[in-house]
Structures are given as C-alpha cells and as structure tokens.
C-alpha cells in the first residue's frame, strides 16, 4: 500500500508543553472549555483527556453538548474559554494530525460532486490549491473507499447515496487524511446494520494501527462492546476513564438524571466491576 508514514510520537516534535502531565501523551486534551450561546452555556468548563491508545466514546443525553465539545475543540464553533491540545501541541498546530467526521446529516447531499471528489477533499490540505489529484492521490482515495466498502461507488453523484453510504463516504474522507486522531460525530446515527459493522471494523483497524479514535456516541447498548474509554457529559463533565470503571450505573444516572429507567441501566452498565 502506498501509505505515507507519519511520526506518531508527539514528543518527537520537540515542543515543550506547560500543561498537566497527562496531556503529554493524550491524543486530545481539553482544559476549561466553555461554549455559550448568549449567556446559556452549552458546555461549561469542561476538562477532558482522551487517551492516544484505544477508542473513546463521548456519551450524554440530548443537548448535553457532546457534538459541541468536539466542534469547539476543533475550532469549528467559537469557544468562550478553554485551551485544547492535540498530542501535546496547540490544536491549531496539529491540524494535519486530526481527521474530523461531521454528522452526515449536516450537509446538503444534493451538492454537485461525486463520491471520489468528496474523499479527495481529505487531501486538499496536503496537495494545496493546485496540486495534482490524479494518479497516486486518486489511488490512495480509492484505497480509502475500499476500506469502507464503497469502492464501487467512486463515480456516483453523492445525491444517490443512502444514509449509511453517506456516512461511509465521510469516513473514507477522514481516512484519506491519514491522521493520527479521528474525531467522529455520531458515526452510527441513522445507519443500517451493515454500515454500523463496516464503520466499527474500520475504527478497530485504526485502533490496531495505534491511532486514537474519539466518537460522539448515543447508543448506550454498544458502549461496552465498542469502546475502551468513555467520557460522560451533561453540560459539565460527569466522569471519564476506562469503560470498565467509568460506565457505571451511578455515573449514567448522574449524566442522564431520571431519564433512564434503573432496570434498563443494570443491563447496560458495569456494576461493581463485573463483566
């Protein structure tokens, strides 16, 4: 395969970081992040550390600020306060190492472009304004489409795709960036079972390549199966850590308030370190 190798150890870059020790190796570290619309905070003074190894889920009720946390960390929406480091560097200096997968419902799929064009958007930063996209970059983009099982759709107009296929194309675009940190906003929202499997397989493959994966996730039933770490949020940080110790009934109760039935919770979560 024609994959470029990239340095994966942040400290190689020779940058001194003044923040807490944990952020030295963390893939994504957020300190005091606050986002507010008017004077109503969407997320308030959030500290979060997402490990460089394994897959992390951001979990919380609707309106808890899960997507907002990702977007604000990336600078997609303005933040009121807080700083964000990626592999120990300020986020603005680490753009090339970050791949973002927005919610597929957030764009107009009638836009005049093809599947291949969308995947190649992941290469725009690398090739620049006028760099060639034919040849090797195109082969690479095709490889990425292949990894999500969409190679046959390269020439399709994006308006013809189903919801699950749209999600896979967005994932392929992120893969094309060949980043070290993958941030996904609800990658399993509204997709078919086959897509969910395809996406999770790709994410697990990324994990085995020592890439960091952080996903906003809404399906409590699959948190234990899919993820290694979990970050519970409801405007403020509720808890974070390995799923085995963090994804507990108490913590979920704290995040969701009375909105989850207790019997239901017991089936989903780790109780007293069981499982």
């Amino acid at each position, binding site marked *: 395969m024609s994959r470029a190798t990239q340095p994966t150890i942040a400290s190689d870059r020779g940058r001194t970081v003044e923040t807490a020790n944990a952020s030295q190796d963390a893939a994504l570290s957020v300190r005091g992040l606050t986002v507010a619309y008017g004077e109503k905070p969407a997320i308030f003074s959030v500290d979060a550390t997402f490990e460089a190894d394994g897959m992390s889920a951001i979990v919380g009720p609707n309106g808890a600020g899960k997507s907002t946390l990702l977007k604000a960390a990336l600078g997609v929406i303005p933040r009121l306060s807080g700083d964000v480091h990626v592999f120990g560097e300020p986020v603005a200096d680490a753009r090339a190492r970050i791949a973002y997968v927005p919610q597929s419902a957030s764009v107009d799929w009638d836009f005049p472009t093809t599947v291949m*064009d969308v995947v190649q*958007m992941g290469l725009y930063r690398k090739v620049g*304004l006028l760099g060639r996209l034919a040849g090797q970059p195109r082969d690479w983009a095709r490889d990425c489409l292949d990894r999500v099982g969409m190679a046959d759709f390269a020439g399709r107009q994006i308006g013809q795709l189903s919801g699950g296929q749209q999600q896979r194309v967005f994932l392929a675009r992120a893969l094309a960036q060949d980043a070290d940190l993958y941030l996904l906003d609800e990658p399993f929202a509204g997709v*078919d079972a086959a897509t969910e499997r395809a996406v999770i397989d790709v994410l697990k493959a990324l994990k085995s390549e020592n890439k960091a994966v952080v996903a906003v996730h809404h399906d409590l039933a699959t948190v234990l199966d899919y993820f290694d770490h979990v970050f519970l949020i409801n405007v403020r940080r509720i808890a974070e850590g390995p799923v085995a110790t963090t994804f507990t009934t108490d913590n979920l109760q704290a995040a969701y308030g009375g909105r989850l039935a207790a019997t239901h919770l017991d089936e989903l979560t780790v109780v007293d370190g069981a499982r």
Partner: protein
Amino acid sequence: MIPFLDALFLQAGYNAALVAIGAGLLGFAAGASGTFPFLRKRALISDAVAHATLPGVALAFVAMVAIGGDGRSLPGLIAGSAATAWIGLLVIEWIARRTRLSEDAAIGAVLGVFFGTGIVLLTVIQTMSAGRQAGLESFLLGSTAGMLFQDAIVIAIGGSLAVLTTWLMRRPMTLVAFDSAYAAALGYDVRRIDLMMMALVMAVTVIGLKLVGLILIVALLIIPPVAARFWTDRSSRMIWTAGGIGGVSGYLGAVLSASAPALPTGPIIVLVAASIFLLSLLFAPDRGVVAALLRRRRFQARVHRRQGLLALAAQHPIREAYTLRLLRREGLVRADGVPTPAGRAQAAKITRDERRWEVAREIYQDTGLTGRYDGLTPIEDLFTIDEIAEFDHRLGPPARVEGA
C-alpha cells in the same frame, strides 16, 4: 443582411461590437464567480452588494468634482462603488454573526438602506449641478450608448482576474460551500473564504455597473449558475458551464438589443439568460422537469405491470384501466382481459421472481442493498445467474402456477 446577423458577426458598427464583446466577457465572469455563492446558498447577498454600490457611485462623483476633476471618470466611480459595496458586505456579515438577526434580514436591511441612501445622494447631485448632465442614473439600469474601448478593457481585465481567482480557489470554496464545518476542522479560515466569494461577486458587479446596471447585474450572477446546475454534477465543471451560459447570454443579449432600435441592453441580456434557464429547467437530461416526468412515468408503468401480472397469476380480475391497457399493449392479455400464452408465461415468471426476492431479502438482510429489492428491478440485473440458481435451489422445483 438582416440587422441581427450583422450584429451577431460584429458587423453592426464599432459601438455595437464593443458592447457585444464586453457583455459576453462580463456574462462569463459573472456566471463563473456566481457559482460558489450560489452553491453556498448565499446568492442573494450579491443582490445587496450590488445595491450597496449606488451611494459609492454618488459619493465618488461628488468627491471628484470637489477636487476639480471630471466626476464621470470610470476608475473613480468604480473605486467609490467598490468601497460602499464592501462596507455593505461587512455590515451583512456582522449582523448575521453578531446579532440575533438572520442573514436574510441583514440582506434586506442593507439593500434597502444603502440603495435608499444612494438614490437620495443621486437626487441631490442632480439639483446641485443643474444643467450638468452627470448621467449617473445610467448606473441603475446600465447603458451602452457611451461605452468606450477603455470600458471593455476594464471588463476584460477585471473579469479575467475574477474567473482566474475562482478557478484557483475552487478547492477551498468547494469545501466551504459543501461542508464548512469540515473545512474549519481542516484549518481553513471559513469566514475569509466566504468574504472572498463575495469579494469576487463585488468585483464583477462594479465592473459591470455601467453596462448592465446595478439592479440587473445580480441576475447575471445568479441565473447562469442555477441553469448550469441542471447540466453538471460537479462543482468544478459548473464554473465553466455557468461562465459559458453567462457569456452566451451577455453576447446574444447585446446582439439582440443592437439589432432593433430601442431595445435596452441590460434587460435583454437578463431575458436571454432567463430563457436559457427555462430551457435547462425543462429539458436538461436527468435533472430537467421533462426527464423527471418521463422517469416517473416509466416507474409507474413498471409498478402497474408487476401488479397486473401478479393479478393474472392469482387469477384476480384487473380493474385498473391503465394496467389493462399496459398489458394489452404488450400482448399479455386479450381485449376481454383473458391472459394470452405470453401473459401466462410472464405471470409465472414474476411469481417465481417474487419468491426469489423473498429468499434474496432473507439472505442479504442488511447489506444495505435491501432497499433495491423492491421487485421492480429485474432480478437478473442485481444478481448473477449463479446467485439466482442458489435461490432456486432453496426454493425447490418450480411450482405449478394455478390455471397455467
């Protein structure tokens, strides 16, 4: 020769030729630079920007007269119009970003206020320099009468720069128009790229002011991209298609208006562009209205044919006249509704295919293709002969269709 052909081949005099070439170039530049604002769904901002040029024109005139120069000097008027258009653009951007007002409210407010101010200034100028024909009203609807070689040069150079910039910046602009959140995550300055899109629109507007006028220039910025969208599915090609449509509209419009007395150039150009839009809307392959209608008819026919054949197989009477007509035309039923041998064979086949679909749906439950297992696509189109043989194997030997 008839006047239209004379004008078409630039034989209708120096001024007519100059106007035709200038209008063609302007149309091309407007179509190409209007593409991304349209795709970003911010096309109407260009309308406000165009109207916001008027106070600039008036103020520049006053300023140039005040310092003792010729108030009608084109570069000065262009600079003035660009200045107020830019202010208008920033005000819209500021209102949409910093206040609770939405962008359309900002567009409306800026358009009205700037245009109103411009008209007031224009009126004042006319009373001030009584007897002195400033001719600034021609900036409202455009005028071709006094077009100079120098004006055509301004359009050619300014237009080329606008097209070149659009082409150079097509990747970031595509990214921002399609998925601005992703663009921001990649580190692009979305706000600056948005401003650049609008700056291009503004540039085309100010160079086209004198020829087409500020009220109608917006049509040249919007209609060609909208029409081009019917013909292409790729944004990079849309730049050139929209440019082409704009160029043809500009040239043809100027030629038409030159071939008869008293036909205003700007409005005729817009009408030509609108005609191209209408033709595209109706007849474009794939996205056109006629194509969509035909597709729908074909789909309806497939649904009825399937229903009819299933009814034949089940020996139900067919009551829908359209279904009967369809089957009769294919020779599958006789005039009295009794199936022909061919009809019975087709009915048997479709019954079998129905059962094959069921097996297929069971096997491939969640491959994401299931949406296409509607029984309307011929089963042979989706599956190989081997796969169908596998379904048949599961189904067992063909069952005898009753009545066959």
